[in-house]
């Protein structure tokens, strides 16, 4: 493995340096039918799960075939996507915000050969490479974070639970039988790089043990004032400790005040909190970002804790499937999961889903908590 230079000279980093050029211009990548009809689209229609036609005022049409997939993607797989796009789509392809891939063709007769090609491709292990679906009143791909594959603060994995969940929800990826679309998201800790807090169903990694304190190294590796100020509940204070007869500067954690956010660990590697028994999953439900009918909503905690059960997270996926099926059977057409729960009342939500309501689900965190208690005599028995 001999080092091969790109032309960069480490002795002279400013030589020929190019910076601040930003991304490539979007218009370089538009397929011709998009370039010619941008801003002229009249309407769209979902022809079948995963297949949409958009019709332009010029009379042009674009047919989009949407496929799901893992957002962790090898160059081998991307090359295969390119091969398909070269064969069917004149060398253009697009990704969506939710990690789906979209193949576009400009006439209807090109759709079925493309769909057949996509659906015929499978990994050696047996799963689909490019399942077509994820449109309309169904379930589309899960947006998620890195998890154990690449992050230092996760309380669960991301790719693993996402694969396990989508296997369980696969029929609803391929169908549009739900009352409204249902968005599932995963964030592997409450930093929520995935911003799951407004999803119909959110899978959230959560720690439950306060940080350990690595006294011997803390002052060497951390800025103590930053670690202290990082704590939102002021649970960390400075402390002098004796280690091997030496007095060291360190910190003390008031464990009863800890909300397990891991913010201290982000600032100080000597306060690790991940733990096999402590870490697991919170299920939140009923959020949305669309302004359709009702305002955007935050997701609410429905299940305070489920253990990390690698590799298939059985309790988590069973719980999600249960919530989806109860919602599908009970909600009205157009009703999002959160709108349904509010209409029937959250007490009914717990009845119908059979989820146990525990004290953990009553908010006791600062200001918003009060507004979530019941200040009326109207409730259901």
């Amino acid at each position, binding site marked *: 493995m001999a080092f091969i230079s790109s032309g960069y000279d480490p002795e002279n980093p400013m030589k020929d340096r190019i910076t601040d050029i930003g991304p490539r211009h979007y218009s370089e990548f538009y397929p011709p039918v998009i370039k010619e009809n941008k801003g002229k689209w009249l309407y769209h229609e979902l022809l079948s799960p995963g297949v949409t036609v958009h019709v332009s005022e010029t009379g042009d049409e674009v047919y989009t075939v949407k496929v799901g997939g893992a957002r962790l993607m090898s160059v081998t797989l991307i090359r295969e996507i390119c091969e398909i796009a070269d064969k069917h789509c004149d060398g253009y392809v697009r990704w969506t915000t939710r990690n789906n891939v979209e193949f576009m063709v400009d006439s209807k007769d090109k759709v079925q050969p493309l769909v057949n090609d996509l659906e015929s491709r499978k990994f050696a292990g047996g799963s689909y490479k490019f399942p077509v679906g994820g449109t309309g009143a169904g379930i589309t791909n899960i947006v998620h974070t890195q998890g154990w594959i690449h992050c230092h603060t996760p309380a669960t994995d991301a790719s693993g639970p996402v694969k396990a969940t989508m296997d369980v929800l696969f029929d609803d990826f391929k169908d549009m039988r739900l009352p409204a679309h249902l968005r599932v998201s995963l964030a592997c800790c409450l930093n929520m790089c995935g911003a799951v807090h407004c999803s119909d169903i959110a899978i959230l990694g959560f720690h439950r043990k306060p940080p350990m304190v690595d006294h011997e190294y803390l002052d060497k590796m951390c800025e103590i004032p930053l670690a202290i100020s990082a704590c*939102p509940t002021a649970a960390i204070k400075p402390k002098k400790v004796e280690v091997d007869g030496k007095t060291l500067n360190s910190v003390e954690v008031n464990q009863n005040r800890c909300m397990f956010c891991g913010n201290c660990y982000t600032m100080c590697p000597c306060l690790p909190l991940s733990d096999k028994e402590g870490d697991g999953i919170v299920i939140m439900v009923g959020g949305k970002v669309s302004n359709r009918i009702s305002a955007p909503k935050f997701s609410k905690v429905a299940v305070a804790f489920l253990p990390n059960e690698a590799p298939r997270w059985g309790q988590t996926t069973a719980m999600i499937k249960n919530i989806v099926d109860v919602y599908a059977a009970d909600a009205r057409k157009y009703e999002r999961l959160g709108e349904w729960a509010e209409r029937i009342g959250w007490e009914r939500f717990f009845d119908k889903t059979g989820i146990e309501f525990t004290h953990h689900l009553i908010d006791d965190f600062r200001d918003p908590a009060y507004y979530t208690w019941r200040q009326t005599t109207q409730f259901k028995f």
Partner: protein
Amino acid sequence: MAKHETPLLDQLESGPWPSFVSDMKQEAESRAKNANNVDFQVPVDVVDDLMGILELSFKDGTTHWKHGGIVGVFGYGGGVIGRYCDQPEKFPGVAHFHTMRVNQPSGKFYTTDYLKKLCDLWEFRGSGLTNMHGSTGDIILLGTVTKQLEEVFFELTHNFNQDLGGSGSNLRTPSDCIGQARCEYACYDTQDLCHTLTLDYQDELHRPAFPYKFKFKFDGCPNCCVASIARSDMSFIGTWKDEIRIDQDAVKAYVAGEIRPNAGGHQGRDWGPFDIQKEVIGLCPTECMRYENGKLEINNKECTRCMHCINTMPRALRPGKQTGCSILCGAKAPILDGAQMGSLLVPFVEVNKESGYQEIKDVIEAVWDYWMEEGKNRERLGELMKRQGFQKLLEATGIPAMPQHVQEPRHNPYIFWKEEEVEGGWERDVVEYRKNHLR
């Protein structure tokens, strides 16, 4: 023969959904075989070791990645996430496994030429694994060694005309919905606004000068497909001021059952015949519509543009023509003080390509000036707004208060009157006062 046994990961190869494990295995095999004689610049077994360390995490229920070290490219304070594993002896291939964020093109359209070249580069100088895409929007090149960072950056800038994205306390890579490129709902050109602001604010994107991260996202309509209202410090959501355009013949066709409602989005179940009263008129949140004698009427003055009627009958209804965007501020995930949704700051502003979007940039820069002056270290804009109050944001941006800014007026009368708002000011003479008020 796989380098590490991965019995737990192997169980994720079955089932219909695309298996990332199968994909990693094919990449590991491809590197081992090396059919194209690539002179790999990172360990050939990097993917094997990544699977090995992930298997270990599946077994012991914890991560094996350490905090990011301070690595990057010269002159930039973002775009690279340093990453080291905590078991380097067992998994030397991923001992150093840094991520590079590549600023995606607005709209995420690609040519295969571009992607194939990028694949060649990342197979040669990295792990061959990516995220398409990261949560914020970048193409994530997952895993390389420190020495390759400058090499990849040099190749990107010289051979791809392509820059890195943001990380750390700076402007994060802006992202947008598909917009007018392929959506009839888009009220402005999200791709052009996203691209233009990304270029105009390259310095803010590459060189951390903010109290904390700052995100822009661009949604073409109130459906909010990129979730800007939930996850961006400044959210730009397309809207309109005039009347929803109605094609009465198409309305009749929906009523007659000739066109499927919701663009066919409910076709997986038999919901019975379309009922415009129940499904559109009755669900309108402002009750501003009626359908009588075969004619749909909308009292547009009372409409709050929720999109439901348009989503349900896209061939009959379209947003108005006087379009622009609303700007909302302060959305963020729960850390630290609870989740926040964006709060409406600018109800309507024209999205004016000709002016270089100056009207929008004026708002952005006023918000930044305020946040950089008042924000504490690691305080998001939304948290500052909560700490100091929405009125401070109005003062900073020179925007007059209006009822659109609130869901309802305040619940308490504890108004922090300013001296200049009170007749006669606050300076008074207690001696004069005592002439009429004995002690």
